[in-house]
Protein backbone atom coordinates (compact mmCIF):
# COMPACT_ATOMS: atom_id res chain seq x y z
CA UNK A 1 0.00 0.00 0.00
CA UNK A 2 1.47 3.29 -1.11
CA UNK A 3 -0.49 6.54 -1.25
CA UNK A 4 1.42 9.76 -1.85
CA UNK A 5 0.70 13.35 -2.83
CA UNK A 6 3.18 15.33 -4.91
CA UNK A 7 2.88 19.13 -4.93
CA UNK A 8 3.40 20.43 -8.43
CA UNK A 9 2.46 23.11 -10.98
CA UNK A 10 -0.07 22.79 -13.79
CA UNK A 11 1.06 22.01 -17.32
CA UNK A 12 -1.76 23.80 -19.13
CA UNK A 13 -2.06 27.60 -19.17
CA UNK A 14 0.18 30.31 -17.73
CA UNK A 15 -1.76 30.87 -14.48
CA UNK A 16 0.61 28.49 -12.70
CA UNK A 17 -1.86 26.72 -10.43
CA UNK A 18 -0.48 24.42 -7.78
CA UNK A 19 -2.00 21.07 -6.90
CA UNK A 20 -1.18 17.70 -5.45
CA UNK A 21 -1.12 14.71 -7.73
CA UNK A 22 -2.59 11.78 -5.82
CA UNK A 23 -0.70 8.55 -6.44
CA UNK A 24 -2.00 5.21 -5.27
CA UNK A 25 0.23 2.18 -5.74
CA UNK A 26 2.13 3.80 -8.61
CA UNK A 27 -0.89 5.17 -10.49
CA UNK A 28 -1.95 8.82 -10.63
CA UNK A 29 -5.56 8.76 -9.47
CA UNK A 30 -6.49 12.37 -8.88
CA UNK A 31 -5.73 16.06 -8.67
CA UNK A 32 -6.15 18.01 -5.44
CA UNK A 33 -5.93 21.81 -5.74
CA UNK A 34 -3.52 23.26 -3.17
CA UNK A 35 -5.46 25.41 -0.72
CA UNK A 36 -2.44 27.44 0.31
CA UNK A 37 -1.14 28.16 -3.20
CA UNK A 38 -0.59 31.88 -3.87
CA UNK A 39 -1.91 31.51 -7.41
CA UNK A 40 -5.03 29.37 -7.13
CA UNK A 41 -5.90 29.18 -3.42
CA UNK A 42 -7.51 25.75 -3.65
CA UNK A 43 -9.37 26.36 -6.90
CA UNK A 44 -8.86 24.99 -10.42
CA UNK A 45 -10.47 25.09 -13.83
CA UNK A 46 -11.84 22.01 -15.58
CA UNK A 47 -8.48 21.35 -17.23
CA UNK A 48 -6.64 21.47 -13.93
CA UNK A 49 -9.09 19.20 -12.15
CA UNK A 50 -8.61 16.57 -14.84
CA UNK A 51 -4.92 17.06 -15.61
CA UNK A 52 -4.05 13.59 -14.25
CA UNK A 53 -6.18 11.90 -16.92
CA UNK A 54 -3.80 12.09 -19.86
CA UNK A 55 -0.76 11.00 -17.84
CA UNK A 56 -1.48 7.30 -18.04
CA UNK A 57 -3.23 7.31 -21.37
CA UNK A 58 -2.35 4.06 -23.20
CA UNK A 59 -1.41 6.11 -26.27
CA UNK A 60 1.62 7.60 -24.48
CA UNK A 61 4.91 6.94 -26.26
CA UNK A 62 6.89 4.30 -24.38
CA UNK A 63 9.72 3.42 -26.76
CA UNK A 64 11.92 5.32 -29.21
CA UNK A 65 10.84 5.03 -32.84
CA UNK A 66 13.04 5.12 -35.93
CA UNK A 67 11.76 5.39 -39.49
CA UNK A 68 12.83 2.41 -41.55
CA UNK A 69 11.52 1.86 -45.08
CA UNK A 70 9.01 4.62 -44.55
CA UNK A 71 7.65 3.19 -41.30
CA UNK A 72 8.19 4.30 -37.72
CA UNK A 73 9.43 1.19 -35.89
CA UNK A 74 10.30 0.62 -32.25
CA UNK A 75 13.99 0.80 -31.46
CA UNK A 76 16.17 0.70 -28.38
CA UNK A 77 17.59 3.84 -26.81
CA UNK A 78 21.20 3.17 -27.79
CA UNK A 79 20.31 2.93 -31.44
CA UNK A 80 17.95 5.92 -31.36
CA UNK A 81 20.42 8.18 -29.57
CA UNK A 82 23.41 7.13 -31.68
CA UNK A 83 21.47 7.48 -34.89
CA UNK A 84 20.10 10.93 -33.95
CA UNK A 85 23.44 12.29 -32.75
CA UNK A 86 25.28 11.01 -35.81
CA UNK A 87 22.69 12.41 -38.25
CA UNK A 88 22.80 15.83 -36.54
CA UNK A 89 26.58 15.71 -36.63
CA UNK A 90 26.66 14.70 -40.25
CA UNK A 91 24.38 17.60 -41.29
CA UNK A 92 26.26 20.14 -39.16
CA UNK A 93 29.55 18.84 -40.56
CA UNK A 94 28.46 19.01 -44.16
CA UNK A 95 26.29 22.13 -44.29
CA UNK A 96 27.32 23.98 -41.15
CA UNK A 97 25.66 24.37 -37.76
CA UNK A 98 23.06 26.81 -39.12
CA UNK A 99 21.61 24.07 -41.30
CA UNK A 100 20.15 22.70 -38.07
CA UNK A 101 17.23 24.24 -36.20
CA UNK A 102 15.83 23.63 -32.72
CA UNK A 103 12.31 24.05 -31.43
CA UNK A 104 12.27 24.54 -27.67
CA UNK A 105 9.07 24.09 -25.73
CA UNK A 106 6.67 26.09 -23.62
CA UNK A 107 5.62 22.74 -22.12
CA UNK A 108 9.02 21.76 -20.83
CA UNK A 109 10.69 22.92 -17.64
CA UNK A 110 13.13 25.79 -17.26
CA UNK A 111 15.96 23.34 -16.68
CA UNK A 112 15.15 21.39 -19.85
CA UNK A 113 14.84 24.51 -21.99
CA UNK A 114 18.09 25.82 -20.58
CA UNK A 115 20.18 22.75 -21.44
CA UNK A 116 18.43 22.45 -24.79
CA UNK A 117 19.53 25.96 -25.86
CA UNK A 118 22.92 25.26 -24.39
CA UNK A 119 23.18 22.15 -26.60
CA UNK A 120 22.04 24.13 -29.68
CA UNK A 121 24.37 27.06 -29.03
CA UNK A 122 27.45 25.70 -27.31
CA UNK A 123 27.24 22.12 -28.60
CA UNK A 124 26.07 22.55 -32.19
CA UNK A 125 26.97 26.20 -32.69
CA UNK A 126 23.73 27.78 -33.88
CA UNK A 127 21.27 30.36 -32.58
CA UNK A 128 18.49 28.76 -34.61
CA UNK A 129 16.35 28.12 -31.58
CA UNK A 130 12.77 29.25 -31.07
CA UNK A 131 9.49 28.03 -29.61
CA UNK A 132 5.82 28.73 -29.99
CA UNK A 133 5.69 31.82 -27.76
CA UNK A 134 3.87 33.60 -30.50
CA UNK A 135 1.28 30.91 -31.19
Amino acid at each position, binding site marked *: *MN*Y*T*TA*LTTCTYCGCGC*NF*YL*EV*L*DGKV*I*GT*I*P*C*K*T*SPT*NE*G*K*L*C*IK*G*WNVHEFVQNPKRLTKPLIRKNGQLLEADWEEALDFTASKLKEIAGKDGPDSLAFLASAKLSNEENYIYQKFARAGVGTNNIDHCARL
Partner: protein
Amino acid sequence: MIETVKAKAKELLESGNIQGFLGLIEKNGHIAPHLFTDPVELQALNLGDREKAGDARYPLTKYLIQIAKAHPEHIFGILVRGCDERSLKTLYNWNQLDPNQVVPLGFACPEELAEACECLQPYPDACEAGEKVSGRSFEGVAKLDAMERGERFDYWNEQFSKCIKCYGCRDVCPVCFCNECSLASDDLIQTKTFPPETPLFHLVRAVHMAGRCVDCGLCEQACPVGIPLRTLYKKIYAIMDSEFDYQMGYSEEKSPLNLL
Protein backbone atom coordinates in the same frame (compact mmCIF):
# COMPACT_ATOMS: atom_id res chain seq x y z
CA MET B 1 -4.71 19.99 20.99
CA ILE B 2 -2.46 18.93 18.12
CA GLU B 3 -0.20 17.05 20.54
CA THR B 4 -3.19 15.02 21.72
CA VAL B 5 -4.06 14.17 18.11
CA LYS B 6 -0.48 13.18 17.34
CA ALA B 7 -0.30 10.99 20.46
CA LYS B 8 -3.56 9.22 19.63
CA ALA B 9 -2.59 8.67 16.00
CA LYS B 10 0.77 7.33 17.12
CA GLU B 11 -0.91 4.95 19.51
CA LEU B 12 -3.22 3.69 16.75
CA LEU B 13 -0.35 3.10 14.32
CA GLU B 14 1.98 1.52 16.87
CA SER B 15 -0.71 -0.77 18.25
CA GLY B 16 -1.23 -2.23 14.79
CA ASN B 17 -4.95 -1.46 15.00
CA ILE B 18 -4.60 0.58 11.83
CA GLN B 19 -2.18 0.24 8.92
CA GLY B 20 -2.35 3.86 7.82
CA PHE B 21 -3.53 7.20 9.18
CA LEU B 22 -4.96 9.66 6.66
CA GLY B 23 -4.32 13.20 7.81
CA LEU B 24 -2.45 16.35 6.86
CA ILE B 25 1.28 16.97 6.86
CA GLU B 26 3.50 20.04 6.61
CA LYS B 27 5.72 19.72 3.57
CA ASN B 28 7.17 21.95 0.84
CA GLY B 29 6.02 24.99 2.81
CA HIS B 30 2.40 23.90 2.46
CA ILE B 31 -0.05 21.53 4.13
CA ALA B 32 -0.77 18.35 2.22
CA PRO B 33 -3.09 15.39 2.54
CA HIS B 34 -0.91 12.50 3.64
CA LEU B 35 -1.20 8.83 4.53
CA PHE B 36 0.98 8.28 7.59
CA THR B 37 2.32 4.75 7.87
CA ASP B 38 5.42 5.51 9.94
CA PRO B 39 4.74 6.97 13.43
CA VAL B 40 7.90 9.10 13.14
CA GLU B 41 6.29 11.20 10.39
CA LEU B 42 3.54 12.26 12.78
CA GLN B 43 5.81 15.00 14.11
CA ALA B 44 4.92 16.94 10.97
CA LEU B 45 1.17 16.31 11.29
CA ASN B 46 -0.99 19.40 10.86
CA LEU B 47 -4.69 19.94 11.52
CA GLY B 48 -5.23 22.11 8.44
CA ASP B 49 -4.29 25.49 9.86
CA ARG B 50 -1.63 27.48 8.04
CA GLU B 51 -2.25 31.19 8.42
CA LYS B 52 -5.67 30.94 10.01
CA ALA B 53 -7.83 28.19 11.45
CA GLY B 54 -8.93 25.66 8.88
CA ASP B 55 -7.46 27.44 5.85
CA ALA B 56 -6.02 24.13 4.64
CA ARG B 57 -9.00 21.80 5.06
CA TYR B 58 -9.20 18.95 2.54
CA PRO B 59 -11.93 16.34 1.93
CA LEU B 60 -9.93 13.50 3.47
CA THR B 61 -12.91 11.15 3.62
CA LYS B 62 -13.24 11.41 -0.17
CA TYR B 63 -9.61 10.37 -0.64
CA LEU B 64 -10.11 7.47 1.75
CA ILE B 65 -12.78 5.93 -0.52
CA GLN B 66 -10.26 5.02 -3.21
CA ILE B 67 -7.52 3.98 -0.81
CA ALA B 68 -9.81 1.75 1.25
CA LYS B 69 -11.32 0.17 -1.87
CA ALA B 70 -7.86 -0.68 -3.20
CA HIS B 71 -6.82 -2.15 0.15
CA PRO B 72 -9.77 -3.96 1.73
CA GLU B 73 -7.30 -5.89 3.89
CA HIS B 74 -6.29 -2.76 5.80
CA ILE B 75 -7.87 -0.59 8.46
CA PHE B 76 -7.36 3.17 8.26
CA GLY B 77 -7.34 5.89 10.84
CA ILE B 78 -8.53 9.29 9.64
CA LEU B 79 -8.41 12.83 10.99
CA VAL B 80 -11.94 14.25 11.25
CA ARG B 81 -13.67 17.50 12.12
CA GLY B 82 -17.42 17.71 12.67
CA CYS B 83 -18.11 18.00 8.94
CA ASP B 84 -15.76 15.12 8.11
CA GLU B 85 -17.55 12.91 10.60
CA ARG B 86 -20.86 13.81 8.94
CA SER B 87 -19.43 12.89 5.56
CA LEU B 88 -18.20 9.56 6.96
CA LYS B 89 -21.69 8.80 8.19
CA THR B 90 -23.11 9.61 4.76
CA LEU B 91 -20.50 7.50 2.99
CA TYR B 92 -21.26 4.54 5.29
CA ASN B 93 -24.94 4.99 4.52
CA TRP B 94 -24.25 4.86 0.80
CA ASN B 95 -21.88 1.89 1.08
CA GLN B 96 -18.92 3.92 -0.15
CA LEU B 97 -16.91 3.13 2.96
CA ASP B 98 -17.12 0.24 5.41
CA PRO B 99 -17.23 1.48 9.02
CA ASN B 100 -15.24 -1.61 10.04
CA GLN B 101 -12.38 -0.37 7.90
CA VAL B 102 -12.29 3.15 9.38
CA VAL B 103 -11.11 4.48 12.74
CA PRO B 104 -11.96 8.19 12.98
CA LEU B 105 -9.90 10.50 15.18
CA GLY B 106 -12.08 13.52 15.89
CA PHE B 107 -11.17 17.03 16.98
CA ALA B 108 -13.18 20.19 17.55
CA CYS B 109 -12.97 23.34 15.44
CA PRO B 110 -12.15 26.64 17.16
CA GLU B 111 -14.59 29.51 17.68
CA GLU B 112 -13.24 31.48 14.71
CA LEU B 113 -13.88 28.65 12.27
CA ALA B 114 -17.27 27.75 13.69
CA GLU B 115 -18.26 31.37 13.14
CA ALA B 116 -16.90 31.58 9.61
CA CYS B 117 -18.62 28.31 8.67
CA GLU B 118 -21.90 29.07 10.45
CA CYS B 119 -21.59 25.43 11.47
CA LEU B 120 -24.45 23.82 13.38
CA GLN B 121 -22.08 21.46 15.16
CA PRO B 122 -18.41 22.40 14.84
CA TYR B 123 -17.16 19.19 16.44
CA PRO B 124 -17.61 15.47 15.82
CA ASP B 125 -19.78 13.32 18.10
CA ALA B 126 -16.69 11.30 18.91
CA CYS B 127 -14.42 14.19 19.84
CA GLU B 128 -11.02 13.27 21.20
CA ALA B 129 -9.23 16.59 21.14
CA GLY B 130 -9.95 20.30 21.37
CA GLU B 131 -12.56 22.40 23.17
CA LYS B 132 -16.06 22.03 21.81
CA VAL B 133 -17.63 25.39 20.96
CA SER B 134 -21.34 25.90 20.40
CA GLY B 135 -22.99 25.69 16.99
CA ARG B 136 -24.09 28.67 14.93
CA SER B 137 -27.23 29.40 12.93
CA PHE B 138 -27.46 30.11 9.20
CA GLU B 139 -27.29 33.92 9.12
CA GLY B 140 -26.39 33.95 5.43
CA VAL B 141 -29.55 32.06 4.52
CA ALA B 142 -31.67 34.37 6.67
CA LYS B 143 -30.23 37.38 4.86
CA LEU B 144 -31.19 36.00 1.47
CA ASP B 145 -34.60 34.88 2.72
CA ALA B 146 -35.24 38.49 3.67
CA MET B 147 -34.94 39.59 0.04
CA GLU B 148 -37.93 40.09 -2.21
CA ARG B 149 -38.50 37.06 -4.40
CA GLY B 150 -37.59 38.88 -7.63
CA GLU B 151 -34.49 40.37 -6.09
CA ARG B 152 -33.45 36.95 -4.80
CA PHE B 153 -34.04 35.38 -8.18
CA ASP B 154 -31.85 38.02 -9.84
CA TYR B 155 -29.20 37.57 -7.17
CA TRP B 156 -28.89 33.85 -7.79
CA ASN B 157 -29.01 34.17 -11.56
CA GLU B 158 -26.24 36.71 -11.42
CA GLN B 159 -24.18 34.41 -9.21
CA PHE B 160 -24.76 31.34 -11.39
CA SER B 161 -23.99 33.24 -14.59
CA LYS B 162 -20.37 33.61 -13.40
CA CYS B 163 -19.88 29.82 -13.51
CA ILE B 164 -16.90 28.69 -15.61
CA LYS B 165 -17.93 25.04 -15.48
CA CYS B 166 -14.87 23.74 -13.66
CA TYR B 167 -17.03 21.18 -11.83
CA GLY B 168 -14.87 21.93 -8.77
CA CYS B 169 -17.97 21.98 -6.54
CA ARG B 170 -18.54 18.37 -7.52
CA ASP B 171 -14.92 17.28 -7.69
CA VAL B 172 -14.08 18.52 -4.20
CA CYS B 173 -17.32 17.27 -2.62
CA PRO B 174 -16.73 14.47 -0.09
CA VAL B 175 -20.15 12.98 -0.78
CA CYS B 176 -20.09 13.17 -4.61
CA PHE B 177 -19.34 9.66 -5.73
CA CYS B 178 -21.93 8.79 -8.44
CA ASN B 179 -20.58 6.93 -11.44
CA GLU B 180 -22.92 8.85 -13.68
CA CYS B 181 -23.17 12.50 -12.77
CA SER B 182 -26.48 14.28 -13.22
CA LEU B 183 -24.52 17.29 -14.50
CA ALA B 184 -23.62 15.18 -17.55
CA SER B 185 -27.18 14.04 -18.18
CA ASP B 186 -28.77 15.39 -21.34
CA ASP B 187 -32.17 14.57 -19.88
CA LEU B 188 -31.70 17.07 -17.09
CA ILE B 189 -29.66 19.88 -18.58
CA GLN B 190 -28.14 21.04 -21.79
CA THR B 191 -24.66 19.53 -21.70
CA LYS B 192 -21.65 20.42 -23.87
CA THR B 193 -22.23 24.15 -23.56
CA PHE B 194 -20.20 26.99 -22.18
CA PRO B 195 -21.14 28.79 -20.04
CA PRO B 196 -23.43 26.14 -18.55
CA GLU B 197 -27.16 26.54 -18.64
CA THR B 198 -28.24 29.11 -16.04
CA PRO B 199 -29.73 28.55 -13.51
CA LEU B 200 -30.38 24.89 -14.27
CA PHE B 201 -26.81 23.61 -13.96
CA HIS B 202 -26.52 24.71 -10.35
CA LEU B 203 -30.10 23.89 -9.44
CA VAL B 204 -29.73 20.34 -10.74
CA ARG B 205 -26.71 19.90 -8.53
CA ALA B 206 -28.45 21.53 -5.57
CA VAL B 207 -31.44 19.20 -5.86
CA HIS B 208 -29.10 16.24 -6.22
CA MET B 209 -27.34 17.26 -3.00
CA ALA B 210 -30.58 17.30 -1.04
CA GLY B 211 -30.22 14.51 1.48
CA ARG B 212 -26.48 14.29 0.99
CA CYS B 213 -24.70 17.60 1.60
CA VAL B 214 -22.92 17.66 4.95
CA ASP B 215 -22.19 21.41 4.99
CA CYS B 216 -18.42 21.23 4.90
CA GLY B 217 -18.26 24.32 2.68
CA LEU B 218 -15.41 22.99 0.56
CA CYS B 219 -17.42 23.58 -2.64
CA GLU B 220 -17.64 27.29 -2.01
CA GLN B 221 -13.92 27.45 -1.23
CA ALA B 222 -13.17 25.61 -4.47
CA CYS B 223 -15.32 27.92 -6.61
CA PRO B 224 -13.05 30.07 -8.80
CA VAL B 225 -15.74 32.70 -9.34
CA GLY B 226 -17.06 32.99 -5.80
CA ILE B 227 -20.58 31.61 -6.12
CA PRO B 228 -21.97 31.35 -2.54
CA LEU B 229 -22.64 27.64 -2.86
CA ARG B 230 -22.50 26.94 0.84
CA THR B 231 -25.39 29.32 1.41
CA LEU B 232 -27.32 27.61 -1.39
CA TYR B 233 -26.83 24.18 0.16
CA LYS B 234 -27.56 25.46 3.66
CA LYS B 235 -30.90 26.55 2.27
CA ILE B 236 -31.41 22.98 1.02
CA TYR B 237 -30.62 21.81 4.55
CA ALA B 238 -33.23 24.17 5.94
CA ILE B 239 -35.85 22.93 3.47
CA MET B 240 -35.09 19.27 4.19
CA ASP B 241 -35.26 20.02 7.90
CA SER B 242 -38.59 21.86 7.80
CA GLU B 243 -40.36 19.81 5.11
CA PHE B 244 -39.07 16.31 5.84
CA ASP B 245 -37.77 16.59 9.39
CA TYR B 246 -34.49 15.28 8.01
CA GLN B 247 -31.18 16.77 9.14
CA MET B 248 -28.64 16.33 6.35
CA GLY B 249 -25.40 14.92 7.72
CA TYR B 250 -26.83 14.47 11.22
CA SER B 251 -29.70 12.00 10.75
CA GLU B 252 -28.56 8.42 11.00
CA GLU B 253 -30.47 7.00 8.02
CA LYS B 254 -30.62 7.82 4.30
CA SER B 255 -32.73 10.81 3.35
CA PRO B 256 -36.45 10.25 2.60
CA LEU B 257 -35.84 11.57 -0.93
CA ASN B 258 -33.70 8.54 -1.66
CA LEU B 259 -36.68 6.28 -1.21
CA LEU B 260 -38.50 7.91 -4.10
